[in-house]
Structure formats: C-alpha cells, structure tokens
C-alpha cells in the first residue's frame, strides 16, 4: 500500500470514527486493529499491537501527569482554595471589576500549585462565580476571566499537558515547563489590564460593591498564612530539583506529597476528601492515559506504514521558509482546537510535525511553547472547549452557554495576540529556560 493510501486510511479513518461519536480512545484503538492487520500483518501483528499498547503507558516519563493533577484536586477538595482566595482578596483594594481581578490573581496562584486546568477552573468557578453574580456582575465578566485563567494553568508549571507534550515530542520536559512561565504571566497581566479597562468603560458590567477593608496585620495575615506556604510548595519542588535531590520527574511526587502534608497541617485533610481528590485524579488521568494507550500505538502504526515520513517529506519538499511552515502548523492547531481536545490534538499532529520541525532546525522550546498556547486556545474555543464545559458545569442555571461563548471571546483574542508575540519574539518563550539551563 502506498503511503498516501495509508495516510488516508489511518488519519481519515480515525477522524471519521471520532466524528461518528466513538470515544477518542476507541477510535484510535479501532483503527489500530485495522492498521495492525494490514501493516504489521496477521495474528502476530495483532498480538504485537496488544504488547505495544501495554508498553505505551508503562513509562516513567508519564508519571507526573496524575501527580500534577492530584495537586490541583487536593487543593480543590480540601477547601484550601477558599483560603487562597481569601488571602488574595484582602490584598486587592478598590479597582474596577475587583472580584474578576481577584479571580485572575487567585487563578495565577492556583496555576503554580495545580497541574490541572479543570481543577483550577472548577475551583474558581464554584467558589467565586456565585459571589460575583450575587453582587450584580454580568455573567460575561464573571465567567470569562475564570475560564481564561484556568487555561493559563496549562502554561504555568506544574502542568500535566506540558509533561505529555514533552514526552510525546521529545522536547525537554523541564525546559518546556519553565518556558511556559513568562507567556503565562504575560497573559494574566494582560487579562487584568483588560478587565480594569473594560469595566471602566462599561461600569454596569461589574457594579462597585462594598467590601470589608482590612488593615495592617489583618490584611496580610491570610496571605502569609495560606498563600505563601502553598506557593512555596512550588519553590520546594523546584528547589529539590536545583539542590540535586530529585529528577524533574520525581519532583511531581514531592509536590503532590507536599500539598497533602500542608493540607494535613492546616487540618483540612480528611480521609473522605482525600478519597474524593484521588478519585477525581484517577478519573481525569485515567481518561488521558487511556487515550495514550490508543494514540501511541496509532502513531507507531502511522510511522510503520510510511505515512508519517511521507507526509513529513511532502511538507519539507514544498520548500517553504521555516517561519511559514511553523505559522501553517499553528493555524492548523488552532483550527483543530475547534473540534478536537488537547490530548488528541498532540497525538494526531506530533508524529507529522516533529520530523519536519527537527529537520528545519528551529528552536524546539519556542515551537513547544507555541504549541502549548495553541492548546490553551483550544481549551477556550467554542463550541466545546473543555473549560467552557467545565464552567457551564459549575455555573448556576441563569448563566447560559451563549453567555459563556461571549465571555470567552476577548480572552481568546488576547491569547492569539500573545501567540503572535511569541512567534515574532521567540525570546519570550526561550529566555527563561535558557537562563535556568
């Protein structure tokens, strides 16, 4: 079979099955069976498929995925999140859209403790949205910032999806994690600027509300008591790596353990909420890992059939300048993000993108960080970006899907601007990882 026919069969077949409504993992598995029968050949090929599936998740590099998600879930289920929000709230004085600004700042803090965009969005959504709506905030200014900062969680380490991108693409995981920090912080800064400006222009969106002003010690105490220790988990984890105690992969376990230990010290950890956190983690990570079972083997069969190298060669032979190729890839990713969730996005594109990117010799960290921003866009993209669904799930009924779609638009545009910024000024992504080494 020619590589073109193989590409149609494998890529086209899996896409068709996905759109038929077959769960993504099963769509890969079904096409794998077909591909194994054709390209690996007969019973031996089918047994090899089963063996390769076992190998796909028996991988130390993937262990941070559940552990990072666990950090967020513990924060969520033990109620520590409330304390963080309280600590941030007392510090922020009277600004237009104050509660929305607090949501963005608290979300940035969460991002440094949680490796799960879902946990962060759900935490902020369930804790802050009711307050904002009760104080007369319009649903768009109440939900938009929460989803936007939830997506930024993916850029700021820890991040389960960054680990997955690194492990699938072969780009250094630790450098990718560090590379997300600057673009992530730039995004939260612009979000705050946008909220303040927007509310100043349209004060009706977020009515000024009275709040209890604290002074002196009372003002900073919750911040010092809760926010600083929790954020220092991040410092401890990075410190353990720098001090030579643990490899970057092992740090994820230290981080999850430290989060539990802190929750225990605050007397917020109970057997019941620990089990809830573990069950939440097992659900999200089991779902991701099960897709990996199907998708890793899919990409092996794609490669085995010659389709990967054929497609990569085809792109290279076009002779386009590297910047144009990269731009094309980013546009394709944004387009895919409308239909496909993040794990499948990586699984479908990386086997074809990576050989091309490596051959062109572009900076892999730069490419990886832009890939992350594209996935972050996908999280927010109507009609079924993950965080839009998460938001809808924790919202009271008066918030409609239309509110959520409208709310996310400005933040999508801001993210696209930052993507363009990284594209034009690669140092935004590469400066910090190169500095840290």
């Amino acid at each position, binding site marked *: 079979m020619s590589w073109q026919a193989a590409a149609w069969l494998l890529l086209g077949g899996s896409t068709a099955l996905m759109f038929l409504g077959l769960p993504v993992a099963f769509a890969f598995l079904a096409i794998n069976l077909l591909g194994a029968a054709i390209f*690996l*050949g007969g019973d*031996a*090929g089918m*047994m*090899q498929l089963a*063996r*390769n599936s076992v*190998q*796909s998740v028996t991988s*130390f*590099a993937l262990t941070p995925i559940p552990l990072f998600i666990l950090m967020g879930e513990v924060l969520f289920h033990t109620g520590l999140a409330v304390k963080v929000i309280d600590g941030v709230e007392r510090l922020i004085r009277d600004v237009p859209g104050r509660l929305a600004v607090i949501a963005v700042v608290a979300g940035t803090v969460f991002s440094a403790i949680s490796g799960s965009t879902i946990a962060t969005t759900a935490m902020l959504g369930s804790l802050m949205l009711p307050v904002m709506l009760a104080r007369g905030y319009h649903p768009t200014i109440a939900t938009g910032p929460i989803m936007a900062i939830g997506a930024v969680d993916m850029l700021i380490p820890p991040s389960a999806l960054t680990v997955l991108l690194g492990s699938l693409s*072969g780009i*250094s*995981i*630790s450098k990718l994690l560090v590379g997300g920090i600057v673009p992530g912080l730039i995004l939260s800064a612009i979000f705050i600027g946008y909220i303040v400006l927007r509310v100043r222009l349209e004060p009706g969106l977020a009515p000024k509300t009275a709040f209890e002003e604290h002074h002196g010690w009372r003002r900073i105490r919750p911040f010092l008591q809760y926010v600083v220790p929790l954020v220092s988990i991040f410092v401890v984890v990075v410190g353990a*790596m*720098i*001090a*030579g*105690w*643990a*490899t*970057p*992969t092992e740090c994820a376990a230290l981080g999850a353990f430290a989060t539990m230990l802190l929750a225990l010290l605050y007397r917020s950890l109970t057997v019941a909420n620990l089990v809830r956190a573990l069950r939440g983690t097992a659900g999200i990570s089991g779902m991701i890992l099960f897709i990996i079972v199907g998708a890793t083997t899919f*990409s*092996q069969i794609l*490669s*085995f059939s*010659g389709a*990967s*190298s054929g497609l990569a060669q085809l792109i290279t032979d076009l002779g386009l300048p590297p910047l144009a190729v990269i731009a094309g890839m980013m546009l394709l990713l944004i387009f895919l993000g409308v239909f496909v969730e993040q794990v499948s996005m990586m699984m479908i594109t990386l*086997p074809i993108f990576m050989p091309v990117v490596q051959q062109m010799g572009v900076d892999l960290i730069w490419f990886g960080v832009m890939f992350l921003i594209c996935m972050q866009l996908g999280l927010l993209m109507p009609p079924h970006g993950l965080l839009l669904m998460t938001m809808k799930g924790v919202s009271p009924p008066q918030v409609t899907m239309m509110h959520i779609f409208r709310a996310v638009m400005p933040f999508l545009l801001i993210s696209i601007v930052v993507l363009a910024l990284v594209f034009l000024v690669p140092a935004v992504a590469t400066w910090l990882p190169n500095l840290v*080494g």
Partner: protein
Amino acid sequence: STATVFVPLHAAAQEVTLRVVSAFAENTTYVKNLEGMIKALNASGKGTLQLNFIGGPKAMPPFEVGNAVRTGVVDIGMSTGAFYTNIMPEADALKLTQIPGPELRKNGAYDLINKIWNEKANMQYLGRVIDFTPFHLYLTKKIDKPDLTGLKIRITPVYRDFFQALGATVVQTAPGEVYTALERGVVDGYGWPIQGIFDMNWQDKTRYRVDPGFYSAEVSLIMNLDKWKALTAAQKDVLMKNVIALENANDSWKKANDDDIKRQAQVGIQVITFDAASAKQYVDKAYDVGWTNLIKASPTYGPQMKKLFSR
C-alpha cells in the same frame, strides 16, 4: 540439476523484500551504518533480495523489537541483547564477549549463539554492528579505588548489577534527564560506552572517566528464523555477504573511540586509573558479576557461552 537443490521452485528468480526495524533512533551512528549497508545490499541484490528500512523507535518500541522479530512482525531487527532479555536471559551475554565478532564467527561462538537463538527465540543471529567499544564509568566526583559506596550512579540494565556490587546507589532516569541530574547532583555519575557522550552533550557535566573500561557495547542484527529458512541460498548469500562486510568494518569503531578519547581530554575530562591490582580486580568483578548472574539464569548455556566468549 544442482540449481533445484538450492533454489526451491516457487522462489526461483523471485526477489524477496525483507522489512528491517531498529531499536535505535534514526540519527545514531548505528542506523547510519545500517543504512549504508542496506544501500549497498539493495544495489547488489537486485532481483534477489532487497531490504526495506521501516524505521526506529517511532515505528516499534525498542523493547519490542526482539518480540517483533521472534514472531515475524518484522523480518530483521537491529537491537542490543539487553533489550530482549524478556525473551531469553542469554541475550544479555553478548555484552560479555572479549573476542571480536569475526573471531567469534570462527571459534564456534556464533554457532552456539545461533543454536540458542534458534531454539529459544525463533531467531537467526546475523552479525554484530558495534565492537571494540567498552563501557566506562563517568563521574563528577573523584574516587581513588574501585569502590562506589555513597555515590549515586545513573544506570541502565547493562551494568546495574556491576555498579551495585561496587556499592553504588543506583538511579534510573530517562536519557533526557541525565544532563540535569548530573548538573544538579541528583547523580554523581553514569555508565556509557567510551564513545558517544558528546552526542548527548554530557561532556559539560562530566569531570572524570574511570579507566579501564569493561564489557563490550553490543548492537547486532537478528532475523526471524522462519524467514531465514525460507530464503534461497542465493538470497542468504547476498544478505550474509553484506552483514559480514558491515561486521568487518567494525574496525572503524576503534578510530571513532580514539577520536572521542582525544575529545574528552580536550574538554578537560580527567582519567582516573587504579593501580594494576585494583584495575584487574575492577574488571574481573564486572565479568564475575555478569557471568554469575547469567549462569544463574541459564545453567545450561551460560557456562558454554562463557567458555567461547572469554579470552
């Protein structure tokens, strides 16, 4: 006629294409050498035999190459024994050879290997594509005797038992994390062949190399036994001529190793040597540990292999 003896009727004048996978990535020297061999073979084997290189770990997980060859999912694999010990423990013995491939071919070692590989793994052992390349211990801290107590060493299965026997605390990391692990002191050293640390950029974080080396880095070509048996004499001839040519070209590794030794000196990697007695003790321990474990796992073939593989 004589022709029918060698050429089964159905295969007469038929060209056979065999599928080849590698357990090593496309940019490694092994694969480049292999691709050179495949090119030569395909030129000389027109109408008889052709090789089709499918790819590396992207197409087949490295630890599955052995099984894929055993079951005939692919015809030929390039792998190292440590990657298919899950099929038979004897695969691990190939690192313990102290005699070059061409000599092993003559002294009966290859016959023994093929007896075992045929019987236990449904494989034909074709030949060796790296030779004369010992493993070394690389360190960030100085030692003055063969004792690794208190040191954390990054290991692979090839020399885990040896370093543990020397008292090391062993650490497993992904290859991509070794650099950071060395930089931060998560590990104090690692084992690697004399050649190749520059490919990983580890020279920046390496201060010492311990001489002498031990064991012999091994990468070989293995073939599915049924496919091997189905080849005609002419096809086997084309294949083996090219494999043996590649094996004989292994002398080039000596030069590559010398170049790397010079480069290591240039970037300031110091050589730690022991006195003659300690050095002998160090190397002997490596082989003792290796053979003891192997003979424990394979009481039948272990002693036979030891006899033919050792000087």
